[in-house]
């Protein structure tokens, strides 16, 4: 291929509306970022640290945290990876709400007040914004989060209609960030509760037409630490950065337990 287009051949075109694609300078603004600090290597006490930062209109809370870590204080500690809301590393409490730092634009927050960033609740804090995720993944593993199919293995794919596929589409979106589980007041007071994320992942298989272990999962979730602990406060649904209807999924699991012979 040549990069020289000496004489441009005609190409089909459309009229673009004026000013298309946005434009102009990206505005800057000042924020105060307050981060809840904790490092047991240094002290048993947690405290608030704060910085005044100049940020851009397209910046997210993660950018502000990076600015602090990279330019001001390298000891500020948090997890992150993909930085666009698909890996689930950076769930944290931002102004009291569980969100992903990489998906929360600063301009969408009230920047006239300090922006408060804390670790998610209900899981042991390890350092600053890092919590111990092991109890969360333990609950996930307990609901048999994998396809179980006892039938004859076909040579090609198992068939599934689009309607059957659609039935559990919403709960396949989970990225295991723990925003839902750590927003749940029941989970805060009772760490034994499976929590919304584990139930979402059970739902993903219970309602998959190819799966044969739904009854076993329903049995697991019929436990005293299972779905019946849910008090339908909808915190989880509000917290989910993937827009999963978490409370609805939990209700569907409850109904399945009641309507089946368990």
């Amino acid at each position, binding site marked *: 291929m040549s990069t020289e287009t000496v004489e441009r051949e005609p190409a089909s075109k459309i009229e673009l509306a004026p000013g298309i694609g946005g434009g102009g300078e990206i505005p800057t603004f000042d924020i105060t970022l307050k981060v809840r600090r904790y490092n047991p290597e240094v002290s048993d006490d947690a405290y608030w640290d704060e910085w005044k930062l100049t940020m851009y209109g397209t910046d997210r809370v993660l950018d502000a945290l990076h600015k602090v870590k990279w330019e001001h204080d390298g000891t500020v500690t948090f997890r992150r990876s993909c930085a666009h809301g698909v*890996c689930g590393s950076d769930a944290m409490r931002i102004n009291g709400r569980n969100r992903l730092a990489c998906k929360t634009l600063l301009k969408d927050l009230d920047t006239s007040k300090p922006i408060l960033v804390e670790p998610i609740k209900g899981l042991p804090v390890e350092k600053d914004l890092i919590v111990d995720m092991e109890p969360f*993944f333990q609950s996930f593993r307990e609901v048999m989060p994998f396809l179980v199919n006892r039938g004859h293995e076909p040579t090609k794919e198992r068939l599934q209609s689009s309607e059957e596929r659609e039935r559990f589409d919403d709960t396949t979106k989970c990225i295991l960030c723990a925003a839902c589980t750590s927003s749940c007041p029941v989970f805060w007071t009772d760490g034994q509760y499976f929590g919304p994320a584990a139930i979402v992942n059970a739902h993903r298989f219970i309602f998959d037409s190819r799966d044969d272990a739904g009854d076993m999962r329903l049995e697991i979730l019929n436990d005293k630490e299972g779905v019946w602990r849910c008090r339908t406060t909808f915190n989880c649904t509000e917290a989910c950065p993937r827009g999963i209807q978490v409370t609805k999924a939990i209700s569907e699991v409850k109904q399945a337990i009641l309507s089946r012979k368990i």
Partner: protein
Amino acid sequence: MQVHKYDVVIVGAGGAGMRAAIESGQRAKTAVLTKLYPTRSHTGAAQGGMCAALANVEEDNWEWHTFDTVKGGDYLVDQDAAEVMAKEAIDAVLDLEKMGLPFNRTPEGRIDQRRFGGHTRDHGKAPVRRSCYAADRTGHMILQTLYQNCVKHNVEFYNEYYVLDLLTVEEEITVDGVTKLQTRVAGVVTYDLATGELHVFQAKSIIFASGGVGKVYKTTSNAHTLTGDGMGIAFRRGIPLEDMEFFQFHPTGLAGLGILLSEAARGEGAILRNSEGERFMERYAPTIKDLAPRDIVARSMANEVREGRGCGPNKDYVLLDLTHLEPAHIDAKLPDITEFARTYLGVEPYTEPVPVFPTAHYAMGGIPTNIKAEVLQDNDTVVPGLYAAGEVACVSVHGSNRLGTNSLLDINVFGKRAGIYAAEYALTADFVDIPDNPLTETEALLDTMRSSEGGERVAQIRKELQDIMDANVQVFRTEETLLEALSVIDGLEERYKHVTVQDKGKRFNLDLLEAVELGFLLDMAKVMTAAALHRKESRGGHFREDFPERDDENYMTHSMAYKDPTATETSGVRLKTKPVVFTRYQPMERKY
């Protein structure tokens, strides 16, 4: 020093690592080490699909897929490897379906398939529907499905264990009367992020599946954590790196941010337009237009901008136009990427075209392997017990330009192979003794950084590295830009010796981690630039404006970059070549 013993140790828990673990874990005692949690791996960010000639929706076969892969890679693909991949693609997709992956379905309930760049029917006649997909979150579904199956098979994970060194010894061997030194692997050294302690994992087989190196660039679709660690560790231990001059720039990154918008958008009918509203790809690839391979589309976009037909106040991007597609169709097939446009740019793709520009996306090169995923220490000597798969490896199925979807395929096909062969080897081999003082080099590396008061900041050096790579080692390169880049990198490397980390603690010291990662980034940027300087032709993802034509006579070879302090002119990187494997296709001019 804590020592763990496993038959097989896998470094990295993305698609390739977990696909390997599912095989290896059922055959031999296996551990997976990852610096993240498995589900955080960047496989999860892949969007558009995984190609396989299932022929569920129209006529197709694996030979056409092989041809497209070879042509897409501008004939630098090892054709035996491409054939393996295209043939095994079909089982790779069916394996995933049986593991539970929720593919989109046809009205008959079969796995649905859609068009993707460079994938054609009958050797280039027209686009073909070959990509199996789950909306625009296929990578997410693959990562989740593989993790679910690792849970099912009780795979042992060591999360947030950062591998920093490969323990090797050398043994004399004689092949065809020639005596040479063969590298043997004994294990790996890892840094436990939670405690700051070093652990040695002794293993008979080691699989590197640690992903790519996109963070050498500023504008990239890659995660912050993709810092070329695996490639860097191998390179420092004397393993060569193959074809590192070939780096893919994905055409449609969100302008200014680099966040990926899948090629599936164009597969579903989206059109690229310049400031005049023109569908400019009609000029560059008259037959398949917007569905030309990524190197061609990215270059065409960069060219439109250069010639003044870019959009926006700085005329520095083009537009991805989905406005003629039905909103319901967009919601069903492209929900995530349209949400990215809304969230991060505030653009509504139903009604407005989305600003896009090429974003650094994928390393075609990496640790050289054969089709059994065995690592090569030179053109033909295998390192027994050492394997690599996925983006960290170069087998080479992507040649000088990877086709869309072939990376998800690569990790599944060669991840599976690596797992099987590594376990089989481990069941017959003995452990190699851990060398004396295995931690010395790693401890020295960490102690120097923790104690240095030189005052240089990691973030500043990294930013300057990313700036020069974006400016000088991007879609267009010349000898001048490459030499300048190399000299800047040399200077940064000097300053890197005086880096100070502020966090002096042991617990979750991610400040220290970033400093270590920067060392790998600098090494890899140097290798990529030196290899680009060495290849005085234009092929696939490597476009030299001072040598704009493909030169099969002199450069129809893979490059092999070795660490060699005596190669002072190329910053300690010695470039050699390795023949390309041809089976059925002779090089032709690459037109679409």
